[in-house]
């Protein structure tokens, strides 16, 4: 038999649920109506999900962004912060189309990653393949110079 591992893609989902609960509580306490119909598809987990790889030169950040055209993704680096933001467009609909399932999240996103170094904004490279964005962020020249080799 095929064994499908039915795990949520986000390992932190339990915290999301707690956070969602907390948000609901806060709304209830502040007297705001917590009617879910206003924003039924609010994404509480961070988006996009990231994988970070590091080396002496800098970091490589992979972001899961399926279905987002590269031109819709904005990559910016300032100081030691890398920000990925943009818009995930809704798929085209036709008149009379009804949804039976809607699990894919849409809309705008923004996520900032604190880097453990000052980055060289001119050396940042980004590529997009099969729905995965890869950003390479090098350390700034000053950062690289600061590293002192200790001789024996």
């Amino acid at each position, binding site marked *: 038999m*095929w064994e499908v591992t039915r795990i949520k893609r986000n*390992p932190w989902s339990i915290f999301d649920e707690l956070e969602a609960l907390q948000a609901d509580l806060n709304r209830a306490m502040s007297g705001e109506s917590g009617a879910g119909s206003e924003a039924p598809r609010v994404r509480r987990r961070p988006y996009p999900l*990231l994988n970070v*790889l590091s080396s002496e030169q800098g970091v490589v950040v992979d972001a899961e962004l399926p*279905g987002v055209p590269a031109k819709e993704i904005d990559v910016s680096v300032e100081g030691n912060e890398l920000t990925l933001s943009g818009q995930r467009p809704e798929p085209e609909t036709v008149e009379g189309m009804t949804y039976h399932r809607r699990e894919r999240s849409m809309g705008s996103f923004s996520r900032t990653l604190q880097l453990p170094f000052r980055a060289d904004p001119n050396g940042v490279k980004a590529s997009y393949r099969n*729905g995965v964005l890869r950003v390479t962020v090098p350390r700034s020249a000053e950062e690289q110079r600061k590293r002192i080799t200790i001789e024996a």
Partner: protein
Amino acid sequence: MSTEVERTQETGGESITPQEYGPVYLPDVDIRETADMVEVLADMPGVDKASTDVTVENGVLSISGEAREEAAEGYTAAGREFRLSRYRRDFTISDQIDTNKIKARMADGVLTVSLPKREEVKTRKIKIAS
């Protein structure tokens, strides 16, 4: 109106163990319907066209794909929130679907499967015999 496509719990009889291939994820999907067709959109980041499989057998539509992570020479993992691995999800399709006309396309890690309805189902005007 009844849902044309439903996820089945356990289908498929292949014996592939997750240990061998890493975890198998259920892709997030949208399922939508018009008068003429049902459409399934599935997020499968990291999967290219060649590694995507769409099959229809015994009224079950199976979508699967294998994602490959690009290597980064000289870099070591510092933090990981997602894994690029295998995806698979099965759907029972209604007999209103014309299985010979199912089409699929893969772009930017999103698989779109179009399942047109049979002509008999679509037709609403009935010719009156003289």
